Protein backbone atom coordinates (compact mmCIF):
# COMPACT_ATOMS: atom_id res chain seq x y z
CA UNK A 1 0.00 0.00 0.00
CA UNK A 2 1.18 3.50 -0.62
CA UNK A 3 1.35 5.98 2.22
CA UNK A 4 -1.86 7.69 1.24
CA UNK A 5 -3.80 4.49 0.68
CA UNK A 6 -2.67 3.30 4.08
CA UNK A 7 -3.80 6.50 5.73
CA UNK A 8 -7.22 6.24 4.12
CA UNK A 9 -7.50 2.62 5.06
CA UNK A 10 -6.53 3.38 8.65
CA UNK A 11 -8.98 6.24 8.87
CA UNK A 12 -11.85 4.12 7.58
CA UNK A 13 -11.11 1.20 9.89
CA UNK A 14 -10.65 3.48 12.89
CA UNK A 15 -13.92 5.22 12.10
CA UNK A 16 -15.82 1.95 11.78
CA UNK A 17 -14.34 0.52 14.96
CA UNK A 18 -15.08 3.69 16.89
CA UNK A 19 -18.64 3.72 15.67
CA UNK A 20 -19.15 0.06 16.48
CA UNK A 21 -17.72 0.21 19.99
CA UNK A 22 -19.32 3.59 20.67
CA UNK A 23 -22.73 2.37 19.57
CA UNK A 24 -22.40 -0.68 21.76
CA UNK A 25 -21.53 1.47 24.77
CA UNK A 26 -24.46 3.73 24.01
CA UNK A 27 -26.88 0.83 23.78
CA UNK A 28 -25.62 -0.66 27.04
CA UNK A 29 -26.13 2.72 28.68
CA UNK A 30 -29.70 2.72 27.39
CA UNK A 31 -29.28 5.43 24.78
CA UNK A 32 -30.15 5.30 21.10
CA UNK A 33 -26.90 5.29 19.13
CA UNK A 34 -28.45 7.21 16.27
CA UNK A 35 -29.60 9.96 18.55
CA UNK A 36 -26.45 9.99 20.66
CA UNK A 37 -24.08 10.11 17.68
CA UNK A 38 -26.23 12.80 16.13
CA UNK A 39 -26.06 14.86 19.29
CA UNK A 40 -22.35 14.26 19.64
CA UNK A 41 -21.64 15.57 16.17
CA UNK A 42 -24.22 18.32 16.27
CA UNK A 43 -22.91 19.73 19.53
CA UNK A 44 -19.29 19.69 18.40
CA UNK A 45 -19.24 20.41 14.71
CA UNK A 46 -22.69 21.88 14.24
CA UNK A 47 -22.55 24.72 16.76
CA UNK A 48 -20.20 27.67 17.10
CA UNK A 49 -19.80 27.22 20.83
CA UNK A 50 -19.23 23.50 20.60
CA UNK A 51 -16.80 23.88 17.74
CA UNK A 52 -14.94 26.54 19.67
CA UNK A 53 -14.59 24.11 22.55
CA UNK A 54 -13.32 21.45 20.16
CA UNK A 55 -10.65 23.86 18.95
CA UNK A 56 -9.86 24.79 22.51
CA UNK A 57 -9.39 21.15 23.46
CA UNK A 58 -7.43 20.32 20.34
CA UNK A 59 -4.95 23.17 20.74
CA UNK A 60 -2.95 21.86 23.70
CA UNK A 61 -3.21 18.35 22.27
CA UNK A 62 -1.37 19.54 19.18
CA UNK A 63 1.43 20.76 21.40
CA UNK A 64 1.61 17.72 23.64
CA UNK A 65 1.17 15.52 20.58
CA UNK A 66 4.23 17.16 19.06
CA UNK A 67 5.99 16.72 22.37
CA UNK A 68 5.59 12.99 21.89
CA UNK A 69 6.01 12.87 18.12
CA UNK A 70 9.36 14.64 17.87
CA UNK A 71 11.23 12.30 20.23
CA UNK A 72 9.29 9.38 18.79
CA UNK A 73 10.82 10.18 15.42
CA UNK A 74 14.21 10.27 17.10
CA UNK A 75 13.62 6.95 18.83
CA UNK A 76 12.70 8.14 22.32
CA UNK A 77 9.42 7.94 24.13
CA UNK A 78 8.29 11.07 25.95
CA UNK A 79 5.81 10.21 28.64
CA UNK A 80 6.86 13.31 30.58
CA UNK A 81 4.50 15.79 28.93
CA UNK A 82 2.58 16.21 32.16
CA UNK A 83 5.57 17.39 34.16
CA UNK A 84 6.95 19.50 31.33
CA UNK A 85 3.59 21.20 30.94
CA UNK A 86 3.25 21.86 34.67
CA UNK A 87 6.73 23.28 35.07
CA UNK A 88 6.22 25.49 32.06
CA UNK A 89 2.79 26.71 33.09
CA UNK A 90 4.01 27.65 36.55
CA UNK A 91 7.07 29.46 35.25
CA UNK A 92 5.02 31.17 32.58
CA UNK A 93 2.39 32.40 35.02
CA UNK A 94 4.89 33.64 37.55
CA UNK A 95 6.97 35.50 35.02
CA UNK A 96 3.94 36.91 33.18
CA UNK A 97 2.47 38.19 36.42
CA UNK A 98 5.73 39.95 37.19
CA UNK A 99 6.07 41.65 33.82
CA UNK A 100 6.33 45.41 34.13
CA UNK A 101 2.99 47.11 33.49
CA UNK A 102 2.75 48.94 30.22
CA UNK A 103 4.68 46.34 28.30
CA UNK A 104 3.15 46.09 24.82
CA UNK A 105 0.98 43.01 24.39
CA UNK A 106 2.99 41.23 21.70
CA UNK A 107 6.15 41.56 23.72
CA UNK A 108 4.49 40.36 26.91
CA UNK A 109 3.06 37.32 25.15
CA UNK A 110 6.37 36.61 23.49
CA UNK A 111 8.30 36.73 26.75
CA UNK A 112 5.78 34.62 28.62
CA UNK A 113 5.66 32.06 25.83
CA UNK A 114 9.43 31.89 25.65
CA UNK A 115 9.61 31.28 29.38
CA UNK A 116 7.10 28.45 29.06
CA UNK A 117 9.03 26.92 26.20
CA UNK A 118 12.31 27.12 28.05
CA UNK A 119 10.96 25.75 31.30
CA UNK A 120 9.42 22.77 29.53
CA UNK A 121 12.58 22.35 27.49
CA UNK A 122 14.70 22.25 30.63
CA UNK A 123 12.67 19.35 31.99
CA UNK A 124 12.84 17.59 28.63
CA UNK A 125 16.58 18.12 28.47
CA UNK A 126 17.03 16.61 31.92
CA UNK A 127 15.03 13.56 30.87
CA UNK A 128 17.01 13.18 27.66
CA UNK A 129 20.34 13.61 29.41
CA UNK A 130 19.46 11.01 32.01
CA UNK A 131 18.67 8.61 29.21
CA UNK A 132 21.59 9.29 26.94
CA UNK A 133 24.35 9.96 29.42
CA UNK A 134 23.23 7.82 32.36
CA UNK A 135 21.41 5.04 30.55
CA UNK A 136 18.28 5.47 32.67
CA UNK A 137 15.15 4.53 30.79
CA UNK A 138 13.39 7.70 29.72
CA UNK A 139 9.96 6.36 30.56
CA UNK A 140 10.96 5.70 34.14
CA UNK A 141 12.75 9.02 34.47
CA UNK A 142 9.82 10.92 33.05
CA UNK A 143 7.33 9.22 35.34
CA UNK A 144 9.51 10.18 38.29
CA UNK A 145 9.84 13.75 37.09
CA UNK A 146 6.10 14.05 36.53
CA UNK A 147 5.45 13.21 40.17
CA UNK A 148 8.27 15.37 41.47
CA UNK A 149 7.27 18.41 39.48
CA UNK A 150 3.64 18.12 40.54
CA UNK A 151 4.72 17.96 44.18
CA UNK A 152 7.24 20.76 43.98
CA UNK A 153 4.80 22.99 42.12
CA UNK A 154 2.20 22.55 44.83
CA UNK A 155 4.78 23.11 47.52
CA UNK A 156 5.96 26.33 45.89
CA UNK A 157 2.37 27.39 45.43
CA UNK A 158 1.37 26.72 49.01
CA UNK A 159 4.49 28.38 50.29
CA UNK A 160 4.35 31.59 48.39
CA UNK A 161 2.80 31.65 44.94
CA UNK A 162 -0.90 31.00 45.52
CA UNK A 163 -2.99 34.03 46.28
CA UNK A 164 -5.30 34.07 49.25
CA UNK A 165 -6.98 30.79 50.02
CA UNK A 166 -6.87 29.66 46.43
CA UNK A 167 -4.58 27.25 44.66
CA UNK A 168 -4.03 29.80 41.97
CA UNK A 169 -1.27 32.26 41.27
CA UNK A 170 -1.84 35.95 40.67
CA UNK A 171 -3.70 36.81 37.50
CA UNK A 172 -1.42 37.84 34.67
CA UNK A 173 -1.71 41.34 33.21
CA UNK A 174 -4.10 41.86 30.33
CA UNK A 175 -1.20 42.48 27.98
CA UNK A 176 -0.06 38.88 28.36
CA UNK A 177 -3.51 37.40 27.86
CA UNK A 178 -4.17 35.89 24.47
CA UNK A 179 -7.22 37.25 22.67
CA UNK A 180 -10.09 34.85 22.13
CA UNK A 181 -11.12 33.79 18.69
CA UNK A 182 -14.63 35.05 19.21
CA UNK A 183 -16.43 31.75 18.89
CA UNK A 184 -19.24 32.67 21.19
CA UNK A 185 -19.21 31.05 24.58
CA UNK A 186 -16.12 29.03 23.89
CA UNK A 187 -12.57 29.21 25.13
CA UNK A 188 -10.89 29.05 21.75
CA UNK A 189 -8.11 31.60 21.62
CA UNK A 190 -5.46 32.58 19.13
CA UNK A 191 -3.29 29.88 20.59
CA UNK A 192 -5.17 27.58 18.20
CA UNK A 193 -3.48 29.45 15.36
CA UNK A 194 -0.21 29.19 17.18
CA UNK A 195 -0.63 25.43 17.34
CA UNK A 196 -1.17 25.27 13.60
CA UNK A 197 1.93 27.31 12.99
CA UNK A 198 4.08 25.29 15.36
CA UNK A 199 2.89 22.00 13.85
CA UNK A 200 3.78 23.29 10.40
CA UNK A 201 7.14 24.45 11.67
CA UNK A 202 7.85 21.04 13.14
CA UNK A 203 6.82 19.31 9.94
CA UNK A 204 9.22 21.53 8.05
CA UNK A 205 11.95 20.99 10.60
CA UNK A 206 11.61 17.24 10.34
CA UNK A 207 11.44 17.16 6.57
CA UNK A 208 13.90 19.79 5.48
CA UNK A 209 16.52 20.55 8.05
CA UNK A 210 19.69 18.88 9.13
CA UNK A 211 18.49 18.49 12.70
CA UNK A 212 15.20 16.97 11.54
CA UNK A 213 17.06 14.62 9.25
CA UNK A 214 19.31 13.62 12.11
CA UNK A 215 16.30 12.92 14.31
CA UNK A 216 14.62 10.79 11.69
CA UNK A 217 17.71 8.78 10.88
CA UNK A 218 18.53 8.33 14.55
CA UNK A 219 15.06 7.08 15.24
CA UNK A 220 14.99 4.68 12.33
CA UNK A 221 18.49 3.33 12.59
CA UNK A 222 20.46 4.53 15.58
CA UNK A 223 23.58 2.51 14.85
CA UNK A 224 23.66 3.27 11.17
CA UNK A 225 23.24 6.95 11.89
CA UNK A 226 26.02 6.85 14.43
CA UNK A 227 28.28 4.93 12.04
CA UNK A 228 27.65 7.56 9.39
CA UNK A 229 28.89 10.23 11.77
CA UNK A 230 25.63 11.84 12.82
CA UNK A 231 25.72 13.25 16.36
CA UNK A 232 23.06 10.85 17.55
CA UNK A 233 23.47 11.39 21.27
CA UNK A 234 23.28 15.13 21.10
CA UNK A 235 20.40 14.88 18.64
CA UNK A 236 18.36 12.75 20.97
CA UNK A 237 18.91 15.04 23.92
CA UNK A 238 17.84 17.90 21.67
CA UNK A 239 14.76 16.01 20.58
CA UNK A 240 13.72 15.61 24.20
CA UNK A 241 14.54 19.25 24.82
CA UNK A 242 12.40 20.49 21.97
CA UNK A 243 9.69 18.08 23.06
CA UNK A 244 9.72 19.58 26.52
CA UNK A 245 9.41 22.96 24.89
CA UNK A 246 6.37 21.78 22.94
CA UNK A 247 4.69 20.56 26.09
CA UNK A 248 5.67 23.90 27.59
CA UNK A 249 3.72 25.66 24.87
CA UNK A 250 0.67 23.69 25.93
CA UNK A 251 1.26 25.14 29.38
CA UNK A 252 1.46 28.62 27.88
CA UNK A 253 -1.82 27.97 26.07
CA UNK A 254 -3.58 27.28 29.36
CA UNK A 255 -2.01 30.17 31.24
CA UNK A 256 -2.07 32.88 28.59
CA UNK A 257 -5.08 31.75 26.60
CA UNK A 258 -7.42 30.32 29.19
CA UNK A 259 -6.91 30.57 32.94
CA UNK A 260 -4.73 33.69 32.95
CA UNK A 261 -2.93 32.23 35.95
CA UNK A 262 -1.41 28.97 37.02
CA UNK A 263 -3.66 26.88 39.16
CA UNK A 264 -3.11 23.52 40.65
CA UNK A 265 -4.01 20.74 38.24
CA UNK A 266 -3.80 22.98 35.21
CA UNK A 267 -3.84 20.90 32.05
CA UNK A 268 -3.65 17.66 33.95
CA UNK A 269 -4.12 14.68 31.65
CA UNK A 270 -3.31 16.63 28.50
CA UNK A 271 0.27 15.44 28.49
CA UNK A 272 -0.86 11.84 28.57
CA UNK A 273 -3.50 12.32 25.93
CA UNK A 274 -0.80 13.80 23.73
CA UNK A 275 0.74 10.34 23.59
CA UNK A 276 -2.41 8.94 22.07
CA UNK A 277 -2.63 11.85 19.64
CA UNK A 278 0.93 11.38 18.48
CA UNK A 279 0.48 7.66 18.08
CA UNK A 280 -2.70 8.06 16.10
CA UNK A 281 -0.88 10.53 13.88
CA UNK A 282 1.97 8.06 13.52
CA UNK A 283 4.37 10.73 14.61
CA UNK A 284 3.68 12.92 11.57
CA UNK A 285 3.67 16.55 12.63
CA UNK A 286 0.86 17.65 10.32
CA UNK A 287 -1.31 14.61 10.94
CA UNK A 288 -1.22 15.57 14.61
CA UNK A 289 -3.54 18.45 13.85
CA UNK A 290 -6.14 16.03 12.55
CA UNK A 291 -5.63 13.59 15.39
CA UNK A 292 -5.95 16.37 17.95
CA UNK A 293 -9.21 17.47 16.35
CA UNK A 294 -10.55 13.91 16.51
CA UNK A 295 -9.74 13.79 20.20
CA UNK A 296 -11.20 17.25 20.65
CA UNK A 297 -14.47 16.17 19.06
CA UNK A 298 -14.62 13.01 21.15
CA UNK A 299 -13.81 14.81 24.39
CA UNK A 300 -16.22 17.66 23.89
CA UNK A 301 -18.85 15.38 22.38
CA UNK A 302 -18.67 13.08 25.35
CA UNK A 303 -19.43 15.98 27.65
CA UNK A 304 -22.27 17.10 25.41
CA UNK A 305 -24.05 13.78 25.62
CA UNK A 306 -23.08 13.06 29.22
CA UNK A 307 -26.73 13.10 30.19
CA UNK A 308 -27.37 10.09 27.95
CA UNK A 309 -24.15 8.10 28.15
CA UNK A 310 -21.40 8.30 30.78
CA UNK A 311 -18.87 10.58 29.22
CA UNK A 312 -16.04 8.18 30.00
CA UNK A 313 -17.30 6.38 26.93
CA UNK A 314 -15.03 8.68 24.97
CA UNK A 315 -11.97 7.54 26.88
CA UNK A 316 -12.78 4.03 25.74
CA UNK A 317 -13.27 5.28 22.19
CA UNK A 318 -9.96 7.11 22.25
CA UNK A 319 -8.32 3.88 23.30
CA UNK A 320 -10.06 2.08 20.45
CA UNK A 321 -8.79 4.62 17.95
CA UNK A 322 -5.23 4.21 19.17
CA UNK A 323 -5.49 0.42 19.20
CA UNK A 324 -6.74 0.38 15.64
CA UNK A 325 -3.89 2.63 14.60
CA UNK A 326 -1.39 0.39 16.36
CA UNK A 327 -2.80 -2.74 14.75
CA UNK A 328 -2.90 -1.34 11.26
CA UNK A 329 0.69 -0.20 11.52
CA UNK A 330 1.49 -3.64 12.89
CA UNK A 331 3.88 -5.54 10.75
CA UNK A 332 4.34 -2.97 8.05
CA UNK A 333 7.96 -2.37 9.04
CA UNK A 334 8.94 -5.87 7.90
Amino acid sequence: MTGRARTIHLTVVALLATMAVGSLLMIVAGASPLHAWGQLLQKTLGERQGFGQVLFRATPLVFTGLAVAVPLRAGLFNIGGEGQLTAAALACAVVAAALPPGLPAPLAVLIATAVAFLAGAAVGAATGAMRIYRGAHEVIVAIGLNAIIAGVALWLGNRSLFVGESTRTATIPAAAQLPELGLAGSNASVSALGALAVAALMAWLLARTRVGFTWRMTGQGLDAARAAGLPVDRARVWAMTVAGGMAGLAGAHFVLGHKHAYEDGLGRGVGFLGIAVALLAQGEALAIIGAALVFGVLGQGGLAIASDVPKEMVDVLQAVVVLVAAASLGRRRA
Partner: protein
Amino acid sequence: MTGFVASLITLGFLAQVLRIAIPYVLAALGGTLSERAGVIDLALEAKLLMGAFAAAVLGYETGSIAVGIAGAAAAGVAVAAIQALWSVRLGADQVVTGIALNLGAFGFTRYFLGVRYGQGANSPRFDGVGTGVLTNPITWIAAALVALVVVGLWQTRLGLRVRAVGERPDAVAAAGVSVARVRWAAVLIGGAIAGVGGAQLSLPVDGFVAEASGGRGYVALAAVIMSGWRPGRAALWCLAFGLADAVQYRMQTHGVGLPAELTRLLPYVLALVLLAVWPRRVAPPRALGQPD
Protein backbone atom coordinates in the same frame (compact mmCIF):
# COMPACT_ATOMS: atom_id res chain seq x y z
CA MET B 1 11.91 12.11 66.34
CA THR B 2 12.11 9.26 68.85
CA GLY B 3 8.43 8.62 68.25
CA PHE B 4 9.16 8.42 64.56
CA VAL B 5 12.01 5.97 64.99
CA ALA B 6 10.02 3.89 67.47
CA SER B 7 7.13 3.73 65.03
CA LEU B 8 9.39 2.05 62.49
CA ILE B 9 10.22 -0.92 64.66
CA THR B 10 6.71 -2.22 65.11
CA LEU B 11 4.83 -5.11 63.61
CA GLY B 12 2.25 -2.63 62.41
CA PHE B 13 4.89 -0.96 60.32
CA LEU B 14 5.93 -4.24 58.79
CA ALA B 15 2.33 -5.06 58.01
CA GLN B 16 1.91 -1.67 56.43
CA VAL B 17 4.94 -2.16 54.21
CA LEU B 18 3.53 -5.47 53.03
CA ARG B 19 0.07 -4.07 52.43
CA ILE B 20 1.41 -1.23 50.35
CA ALA B 21 3.86 -3.39 48.48
CA ILE B 22 1.53 -6.20 47.43
CA PRO B 23 0.00 -4.49 44.38
CA TYR B 24 3.45 -3.41 43.25
CA VAL B 25 4.89 -6.88 43.82
CA LEU B 26 2.19 -8.67 41.88
CA ALA B 27 2.24 -6.16 39.06
CA ALA B 28 6.00 -6.46 38.85
CA LEU B 29 5.85 -10.27 38.77
CA GLY B 30 3.32 -10.12 35.97
CA GLY B 31 5.37 -7.52 34.15
CA THR B 32 8.51 -9.60 34.48
CA LEU B 33 6.86 -12.60 32.88
CA SER B 34 5.49 -10.61 30.01
CA GLU B 35 8.71 -8.72 29.37
CA ARG B 36 10.84 -11.82 29.72
CA ALA B 37 8.79 -13.23 26.87
CA GLY B 38 9.55 -10.13 24.85
CA VAL B 39 6.31 -8.20 25.28
CA ILE B 40 6.72 -4.72 26.77
CA ASP B 41 4.26 -4.44 29.61
CA LEU B 42 3.12 -0.87 29.75
CA ALA B 43 -0.39 -2.18 30.35
CA LEU B 44 0.31 -3.02 33.99
CA GLU B 45 -1.65 0.04 34.99
CA ALA B 46 -4.69 -1.27 33.13
CA LYS B 47 -4.31 -4.70 34.66
CA LEU B 48 -4.16 -3.31 38.18
CA LEU B 49 -7.08 -1.00 37.56
CA MET B 50 -9.28 -3.64 35.98
CA GLY B 51 -8.30 -6.10 38.70
CA ALA B 52 -9.28 -3.63 41.40
CA PHE B 53 -12.50 -2.87 39.59
CA ALA B 54 -13.52 -6.48 38.98
CA ALA B 55 -12.72 -7.47 42.55
CA ALA B 56 -14.90 -4.70 43.93
CA VAL B 57 -17.80 -5.12 41.53
CA LEU B 58 -17.89 -8.91 41.80
CA GLY B 59 -17.25 -8.77 45.53
CA TYR B 60 -20.18 -6.43 45.91
CA GLU B 61 -22.48 -8.33 43.57
CA THR B 62 -21.76 -11.80 44.92
CA GLY B 63 -20.65 -10.97 48.45
CA SER B 64 -17.75 -13.37 48.02
CA ILE B 65 -14.14 -12.34 48.43
CA ALA B 66 -13.01 -15.44 46.58
CA VAL B 67 -15.12 -14.55 43.58
CA GLY B 68 -13.73 -11.04 43.77
CA ILE B 69 -10.14 -12.24 43.66
CA ALA B 70 -10.88 -14.70 40.89
CA GLY B 71 -12.59 -11.91 39.00
CA ALA B 72 -9.53 -9.72 39.44
CA ALA B 73 -7.37 -12.41 37.90
CA ALA B 74 -9.86 -12.81 35.06
CA ALA B 75 -9.89 -9.06 34.46
CA GLY B 76 -6.10 -9.06 34.29
CA VAL B 77 -6.29 -11.90 31.81
CA ALA B 78 -8.82 -10.00 29.74
CA VAL B 79 -6.52 -7.01 29.43
CA ALA B 80 -3.59 -9.32 28.76
CA ALA B 81 -5.55 -11.09 26.04
CA ILE B 82 -6.04 -7.87 24.12
CA GLN B 83 -2.42 -7.04 24.70
CA ALA B 84 -1.29 -10.42 23.42
CA LEU B 85 -3.65 -10.31 20.48
CA TRP B 86 -2.24 -6.96 19.48
CA SER B 87 1.41 -7.58 20.30
CA VAL B 88 1.81 -11.21 19.36
CA ARG B 89 -0.80 -11.76 16.73
CA LEU B 90 -1.10 -8.40 15.01
CA GLY B 91 2.46 -7.27 15.61
CA ALA B 92 1.30 -3.89 16.86
CA ASP B 93 3.64 -1.53 18.64
CA GLN B 94 3.70 -2.70 22.23
CA VAL B 95 4.20 0.65 23.87
CA VAL B 96 1.28 2.08 21.97
CA THR B 97 -0.87 -0.90 22.83
CA GLY B 98 -0.05 -0.59 26.51
CA ILE B 99 -0.84 3.11 26.66
CA ALA B 100 -4.10 2.58 24.82
CA LEU B 101 -5.14 -0.18 27.19
CA ASN B 102 -4.43 2.05 30.16
CA LEU B 103 -6.56 4.79 28.67
CA GLY B 104 -9.30 2.33 27.83
CA ALA B 105 -9.34 0.74 31.27
CA PHE B 106 -9.60 4.14 32.89
CA GLY B 107 -12.58 5.00 30.74
CA PHE B 108 -14.22 1.61 30.91
CA THR B 109 -14.24 1.38 34.70
CA ARG B 110 -15.84 4.78 35.06
CA TYR B 111 -18.25 4.12 32.24
CA PHE B 112 -19.33 0.82 33.74
CA LEU B 113 -19.82 2.28 37.22
CA GLY B 114 -21.89 5.03 35.65
CA VAL B 115 -24.10 2.66 33.74
CA ARG B 116 -24.50 0.14 36.50
CA TYR B 117 -24.59 2.24 39.64
CA GLY B 118 -25.26 5.74 38.37
CA GLN B 119 -21.97 7.12 39.65
CA GLY B 120 -18.70 7.17 37.82
CA ALA B 121 -16.20 7.54 40.60
CA ASN B 122 -17.06 4.93 43.18
CA SER B 123 -18.38 1.40 43.42
CA PRO B 124 -20.89 0.64 46.14
CA ARG B 125 -19.40 -0.29 49.46
CA PHE B 126 -19.26 -3.87 50.67
CA ASP B 127 -17.31 -5.80 53.24
CA GLY B 128 -13.87 -6.46 51.86
CA VAL B 129 -10.88 -8.15 53.43
CA GLY B 130 -10.11 -5.51 56.03
CA THR B 131 -6.73 -4.16 56.97
CA GLY B 132 -5.25 -7.29 58.47
CA VAL B 133 -2.29 -8.65 56.62
CA LEU B 134 -2.30 -12.22 57.83
CA THR B 135 -6.05 -12.53 57.46
CA ASN B 136 -5.96 -11.18 53.93
CA PRO B 137 -5.90 -14.03 51.42
CA ILE B 138 -4.16 -11.80 48.88
CA THR B 139 -1.09 -11.68 51.12
CA TRP B 140 -0.77 -15.43 50.96
CA ILE B 141 -1.53 -15.55 47.28
CA ALA B 142 1.17 -12.95 46.69
CA ALA B 143 3.72 -14.85 48.73
CA ALA B 144 2.94 -18.03 46.86
CA LEU B 145 3.11 -16.27 43.52
CA VAL B 146 6.53 -14.80 44.20
CA ALA B 147 7.84 -18.29 44.89
CA LEU B 148 5.98 -19.78 41.95
CA VAL B 149 7.19 -17.21 39.47
CA VAL B 150 10.79 -17.44 40.61
CA VAL B 151 10.77 -21.23 40.50
CA GLY B 152 8.66 -21.27 37.37
CA LEU B 153 10.92 -18.95 35.46
CA TRP B 154 14.19 -20.56 36.35
CA GLN B 155 13.26 -24.17 36.85
CA THR B 156 10.45 -25.21 34.61
CA ARG B 157 10.11 -26.03 30.97
CA LEU B 158 7.82 -23.09 30.33
CA GLY B 159 10.17 -20.79 32.22
CA LEU B 160 13.09 -21.81 30.06
CA ARG B 161 11.03 -21.20 26.95
CA VAL B 162 9.84 -17.83 28.21
CA ARG B 163 13.40 -16.72 28.88
CA ALA B 164 14.49 -17.96 25.48
CA VAL B 165 11.64 -16.42 23.56
CA GLY B 166 12.37 -12.94 24.87
CA GLU B 167 15.91 -13.18 23.60
CA ARG B 168 15.90 -15.11 20.36
CA PRO B 169 12.42 -15.99 19.18
CA ASP B 170 13.87 -17.27 15.92
CA ALA B 171 15.99 -19.74 17.85
CA VAL B 172 12.97 -20.91 19.78
CA ALA B 173 11.04 -21.41 16.57
CA ALA B 174 13.99 -23.30 15.13
CA ALA B 175 13.84 -25.59 18.15
CA GLY B 176 10.32 -26.51 17.19
CA VAL B 177 8.55 -24.47 19.86
CA SER B 178 5.75 -22.09 18.98
CA VAL B 179 6.90 -18.59 19.81
CA ALA B 180 3.37 -17.26 19.79
CA ARG B 181 2.13 -19.90 22.20
CA VAL B 182 4.90 -19.23 24.72
CA ARG B 183 4.27 -15.49 24.52
CA TRP B 184 0.54 -15.89 24.91
CA ALA B 185 1.09 -18.06 27.94
CA ALA B 186 3.53 -15.62 29.55
CA VAL B 187 1.38 -12.58 28.89
CA LEU B 188 -1.83 -14.22 30.08
CA ILE B 189 -0.29 -15.64 33.24
CA GLY B 190 1.36 -12.30 33.88
CA GLY B 191 -1.99 -10.61 33.38
CA ALA B 192 -3.69 -12.85 35.90
CA ILE B 193 -1.00 -12.12 38.47
CA ALA B 194 -1.12 -8.37 37.96
CA GLY B 195 -4.92 -8.51 38.09
CA VAL B 196 -4.81 -10.14 41.51
CA GLY B 197 -2.51 -7.32 42.55
CA GLY B 198 -5.32 -4.97 41.61
CA ALA B 199 -7.66 -6.73 44.04
CA GLN B 200 -5.45 -5.48 46.85
CA LEU B 201 -6.35 -1.93 45.83
CA SER B 202 -10.07 -2.36 46.35
CA LEU B 203 -10.79 -5.28 48.69
CA PRO B 204 -9.03 -3.84 51.76
CA VAL B 205 -10.86 -0.52 51.40
CA ASP B 206 -14.24 -2.09 50.75
CA GLY B 207 -14.78 -0.68 47.31
CA PHE B 208 -13.34 0.65 44.08
CA VAL B 209 -12.58 4.27 43.35
CA ALA B 210 -11.79 5.62 39.91
CA GLU B 211 -8.07 5.58 39.13
CA ALA B 212 -7.42 3.28 42.05
CA SER B 213 -4.17 2.17 40.42
CA GLY B 214 -2.81 5.70 40.64
CA GLY B 215 0.34 5.11 38.61
CA ARG B 216 1.38 2.00 40.51
CA GLY B 217 1.66 0.04 37.28
CA TYR B 218 4.33 2.40 36.02
CA VAL B 219 6.23 2.21 39.29
CA ALA B 220 6.06 -1.58 39.13
CA LEU B 221 7.49 -1.46 35.64
CA ALA B 222 10.34 0.65 36.99
CA ALA B 223 10.95 -2.10 39.51
CA VAL B 224 11.01 -4.69 36.75
CA ILE B 225 13.61 -2.70 34.86
CA MET B 226 15.72 -1.91 37.90
CA SER B 227 15.68 -5.57 38.86
CA GLY B 228 17.18 -6.51 35.54
CA TRP B 229 14.06 -8.51 34.71
CA ARG B 230 14.49 -10.87 37.65
CA PRO B 231 11.31 -11.61 39.54
CA GLY B 232 12.91 -12.10 42.94
CA ARG B 233 14.73 -8.83 42.79
CA ALA B 234 11.77 -7.04 41.31
CA ALA B 235 9.71 -8.14 44.31
CA LEU B 236 12.43 -6.80 46.58
CA TRP B 237 12.40 -3.47 44.79
CA CYS B 238 8.66 -3.33 45.28
CA LEU B 239 9.08 -3.99 48.97
CA ALA B 240 11.55 -1.12 48.97
CA PHE B 241 8.93 1.13 47.40
CA GLY B 242 6.44 0.02 50.03
CA LEU B 243 9.03 0.74 52.67
CA ALA B 244 9.72 4.21 51.31
CA ASP B 245 6.00 4.97 51.27
CA ALA B 246 5.45 3.69 54.78
CA VAL B 247 8.43 5.62 56.15
CA GLN B 248 7.13 8.68 54.43
CA TYR B 249 3.68 8.30 56.05
CA ARG B 250 5.30 8.07 59.42
CA MET B 251 7.58 11.01 58.76
CA GLN B 252 4.48 13.06 58.05
CA THR B 253 2.66 11.74 61.08
CA HIS B 254 5.50 12.58 63.40
CA GLY B 255 6.30 15.85 61.69
CA VAL B 256 9.80 14.76 60.86
CA GLY B 257 11.61 16.32 57.96
CA LEU B 258 10.15 17.95 54.92
CA PRO B 259 6.72 19.35 54.18
CA ALA B 260 4.10 16.83 53.11
CA GLU B 261 4.23 17.92 49.49
CA LEU B 262 7.87 16.91 49.39
CA THR B 263 8.05 13.82 51.59
CA ARG B 264 5.63 12.14 49.22
CA LEU B 265 8.22 12.46 46.51
CA LEU B 266 10.90 10.51 48.32
CA PRO B 267 10.38 7.21 46.46
CA TYR B 268 10.58 9.00 43.12
CA VAL B 269 13.63 11.03 44.06
CA LEU B 270 15.24 7.89 45.36
CA ALA B 271 14.59 6.01 42.13
CA LEU B 272 15.95 8.84 40.01
CA VAL B 273 19.07 9.25 42.10
CA LEU B 274 19.69 5.52 41.89
CA LEU B 275 19.24 5.57 38.14
CA ALA B 276 21.59 8.53 37.83
CA VAL B 277 24.44 7.27 39.96
CA TRP B 278 24.04 3.63 39.07
CA PRO B 279 23.78 3.40 35.33
CA ARG B 280 22.10 0.45 33.76
CA ARG B 281 24.04 -2.75 34.15
CA VAL B 282 21.62 -5.31 32.86
CA ALA B 283 20.50 -5.45 29.28
CA PRO B 284 16.80 -5.97 28.65
CA PRO B 285 15.59 -9.12 26.92
CA ARG B 286 16.93 -8.69 23.41
CA ALA B 287 13.66 -9.24 21.61
CA LEU B 288 11.72 -6.95 23.94
CA GLY B 289 9.27 -5.00 21.84
CA GLN B 290 9.99 -6.88 18.63
CA PRO B 291 6.84 -8.32 17.13
CA ASP B 292 8.64 -11.49 16.03
